C-alpha cells in the first residue's frame, strides 16, 4: 500500500483535547518527556502554558524597547530638523527649539514605531508569515482548534518521535481525537511564483483603482457639495477685490508708521546734510560684510551703476545712465550721505528702503568704498 510513502510524508501527530486543564496536563507531560519540536494551539491565550512548554523568554520586549527608543530619537530629529533648522517658523513667540511642543510628536512616534514595528517583527520575522503552504493549513485539526478545541502537535522531525508511542500517550491523556498530519506532495514540491498571472492582474487592478479614486477625490469630489465647503470661505485671495474696504483693495498696506521687525524708523527724511553729519556706518569691512555688500550691489545697484560703479549701465540705453561713483564728489561724501541716497532715492533713482535691510545698505556702502579704493589706490596699498 501507500502507507510507507505516506509515512515518509508525515509532518506530525496531532490531538484535540476538550478543555484547558487537559491540554495543560498533556503539555506538561510532553515537555517532561523531552520533546523539542512540538506546538500547542488554542483559540485564546492559556495562562501558564508558556511556562509549562518551557519556552524561552521572548525577545519581543527588548525589540519593542529598541523600536520605541528609535521612534523617540526619530521624532526628536524630525521636529528639531524641520522646526529649528530647515524651516524655522516663529510660532507663538516660542524659541526655535521648544522641546515641550515637540513632546507630543515624540510620544506619538514612539508609540507608533514601537507598536507597529513590534507587530511587524512578531508576524513577519518571528512567526515567519506569510506561510500559505504550512501542512497544518486546511486540516480538520486546525478547524477544530480555531473553534472550540485545544490541540497539540508533535512533529515527525523530533528526535524522540515514535508514532505508536505518541498516539498511545495522547489517548492515555484523554484526547478527543487524534489526527495524523501529512505534507501533501503539492506542498512538498511547492515553489512560490512571483509572476503569477492572478497576482499581476490583481496588481493592475489595484493600480487602476487607486488612480481612479485619487482622480475622483481630488478633481471631482472636492468640487461637489457638500465636500466643496473648503472652496467657499470668508476670505479674499491675493489681488482680489474686496467689498469691505472703501478703496476696494483686499490686500492692505501696513498701517502708516509701521516699522518691520528688526528695522528702525529712518529719522533723516528729506535731510541729506543731517544724515551725512550724523549717520555712522556700524559695520566693519570684514570679508563677510564685503561679500554681503558685493552680492547686494550686484543685485540691486549694478544694473544701472555697472559692475564696478562706473556708470556703465547694463540696460543698453533704455534708461538714462547714472554718473560714476568714482568722482571726487562721491568719494568725499560721508557714508551717511550715501546711506541717505539709498534709503530715500535721488533724482531718478528710487528708494531701496523696502528691498534692502539697514545692514545690507551699510554693507553695500562698504563695498562701494572698496570699489572706489580699487580705482584710486594709493601707493601704500600696493606695498
Amino acid at each position, binding site marked *: 500500500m501507500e502507507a510507507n510513502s505516506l509515512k515518509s510524508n508525515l509532518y506530525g501527530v496531532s490531538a484535540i483535547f476538550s478543555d484547558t486543564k487537559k491540554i495543560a496536563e498533556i503539555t506538561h507531560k510532553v515537555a517532561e518527556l523531552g520533546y523539542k519540536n512540538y506546538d500547542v494551539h488554542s483559540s485564546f491565550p492559556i*495562562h501558564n502554558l508558556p511556562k509549562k512548554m518551557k519556552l524561552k523568554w521572548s525577545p519581543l*520586549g527588548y525589540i519593542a524597547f529598541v523600536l520605541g527608543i528609535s521612534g523617540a530619537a526619530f521624532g526628536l530629529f524630525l521636529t528639531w530638523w524641520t522646526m529649528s533648522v530647515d524651516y524655522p517658523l516663529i510660532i*507663538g513667540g516660542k524659541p526655535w527649539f521648544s522641546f*515641550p511642543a515637540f*513632546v507630543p510628536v515624540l510620544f506619538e512616534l514612539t508609540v507608533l514605531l514601537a507598536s507597529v514595528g513590534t507587530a511587524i517583527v512578531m508576524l513577519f520575522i518571528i512567526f515567519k508569515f506569510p506561510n500559505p503552504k504550512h501542512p497544518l493549513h486546511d486540516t480538520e485539526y486546525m478547524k477544530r482548534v480555531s473553534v472550540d478545541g485545544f490541540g497539540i502537535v508533535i512533529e515527525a522531525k523530533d528526535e524522540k518521535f515514535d508514532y505508536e508511542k505518541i498516539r498511545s500517550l495522547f489517548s492515555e491523556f484523554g484526547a478527543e481525537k487524534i489526527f495524523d498530519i501529512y505534507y501533501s506532495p503539492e506542498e512538498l514540491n511547492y515553489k512560490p511564483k512571483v509572476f503569477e498571472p492572478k497576482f499581476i492582474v490583481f496588481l493592475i487592478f489595484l493600480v487602476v483603482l487607486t488612480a481612479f479614486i485619487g482622480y475622483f477625490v481630488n478633481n471631482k469630489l472636492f468640487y461637489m457639495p457638500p465636500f466643496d465647503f473648503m472652496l467657499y470661505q470668508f476670505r479674499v485671495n491675493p489681488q482680489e477685490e474686496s467689498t469691505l474696504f472703501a478703496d476696494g483693495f483686499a490686500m492692505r498696506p501696513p498701517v502708516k508708521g509701521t516699522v518691520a521687525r528688526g528695522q528702525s524708523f529712518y529719522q533723516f527724511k528729506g535731510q541729506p546734510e543731517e544724515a551725512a553729519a550724523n549717520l555712522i556706518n556700524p559695520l566693519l569691512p570684514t570679508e563677510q560684510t564685503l561679500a554681503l555688500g558685493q552680492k547686494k550691489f550686484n543685485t540691486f545697484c549694478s544694473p544701472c551703476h555697472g559692475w564696478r560703479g562706473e556708470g556703465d549701465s547694463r540696460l543698453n540705453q533704455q534708461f538714462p545712465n547714472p554718473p560714476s561713483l568714482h568722482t571726487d564728489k562721491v568719494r568725499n561724501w560721508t557714508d551717511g550721505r550715501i546711506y541717505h541716497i539709498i534709503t530715500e532715492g535721488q533724482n531718478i533713482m528710487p528708494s531701496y528702503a523696502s528691498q534692502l535691510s539697514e545692514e545690507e545698505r551699510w554693507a553695500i556702502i562698504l563695498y562701494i568704498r572698496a570699489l572706489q579704493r580699487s580705482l584710486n589706490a594709493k601707493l601704500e596699498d600696493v606695498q
Partner: protein
Amino acid sequence: MTTSSDNAVNYVRKTQNPKFLTLSLPIFAIGLLGLVAGFIVNPTQASFNLVVIMAWLLSIGVGSMFFIGIEYLSGAVWSVPFRRIAEINSSLILIMPILAIPIILNIHSLYHWTHQDVLATDEILQRKSPYLNETFFIIRNIIYYAVWVIFYFLLTYFSNKQDLTKDQQLTRRNTVVSAIFMPFFALTLTFFAIDWLMSLEPHWYSTIFGVYYFSGTVLAAISAFTYISIKLNEEGYLVDNLKPDHFYSMGALLFAFTNFWAYIAFSQFMLIWYANLPEETFWFINRGVGSWLYMSIGIIFVKFIVPYILLLPQPAKMNPSRLKFASLWILFAHYYDLFWIVMPTFSKERLIFGWIEIASVVFAVGTIMAIFLLFSKNRNLVPIGDPKLKRSLEFHL
C-alpha cells in the same frame, strides 16, 4: 458556580501585631507632638503643611476605595486576597474631618479669598465668590466627607459581613455600591482638589487639575497597598499560596499610573506653556523662582523617570524587594508633588524644609501605621468569605 464550602482557605488570623507596625504609636505620638508644637510656634506654616499631609493621606484613603470599587466593577480576581488591606487603608478617611478642623480654623492664613479686604478690591475674586466663600466651602467639605464615609461604611460593612456569612449575594451588592460610588468619587475628588489645592492660588485655574490629583491619588493608594501587602505577606499574615504573578499586577498598575500621571502632568504644563496666558502661566512661573526651580525640575525625575526605570523590566514587577522600594519611592514622590503644589504659596521666594515639615511627615507616616494597626486588629486580613478567593489563589499570568 462554587458553593461557600468550597471556599475554605487555610487562613489563620494572627493575634500579634505585624513587626513593621510595632513603632507605629511612638511615631504617631512624636509626629502629633511636633505638629502641635508647630501650630503653637508658626500656625501658618503648620496649616500649609497640614494641607499637604491631608491631601496625601486622603489620596491613600479615597484612592483605596477607588481601588476596591474598580475590583468589584471589573470582576478582578487577582486582587481579592489583598482587598482587605485596601479596605483598612481606606479607613484613613475617617480621620479627615479631624485634620480639617485646625485648617478651617486657620483658613484666613491659608486662603486669601477669605479676606474681606482683598475681596473688596479684586474683581476676579468677587466674581468667584458665589463659589469661593467660607460657608459654601465648609458645606462642600461636609458633603465630601459624608459621601466618602457613607460609601466606606457600605463597602467595608458588606465585606466584613461576608467573612461570617459567606453570602455570595454580598459581592453583588458591593458591586452595585461601587457602581454608584464611582461618579461620586470622580466629582468629590475633583472638587476636593479644586477647593483645597487649587484655591490656594484663587486666580489660577487649570481644568485638568482634578485629573492631575486623581492620577497621584491612585498612585499613592496602590503604592501603600503594595507595600503593606508585600510586608504582610513576608511576615506570613496572608494566605500561603500567593505567587509573584499576584504582585506582578500591582507592579503593572504602579507602572501604568506612573505613566498616566506623567501624561496628565505634561498635558497640564504644555497647554499652559503653549497658550502663554498670563492668568495661567504665573502658577508655573512662581514655581521657577529661586530654589523652587530645582524642585520643579526634580519632580520629573522623582515622580516619573525614577519609578519608570524601576518598574520597566518585566521581572522587576515580580521582584518583591524592588516593588517595596518602588512603592515607598512613589509614596514619597506623591508627597513631593503635593508639597510642590501647596508650599510655593506659603514661601514664595525659596524652598523651605524645616522641622515643621519633618514633624508633619512623621505625623502622616505614623497616622497610616496607627490607623492600619487599629483597624486591622479585629479583622481578618484576607476576605475569607469572598466567592472569588479560591479562584484568585489559583491566579497566574
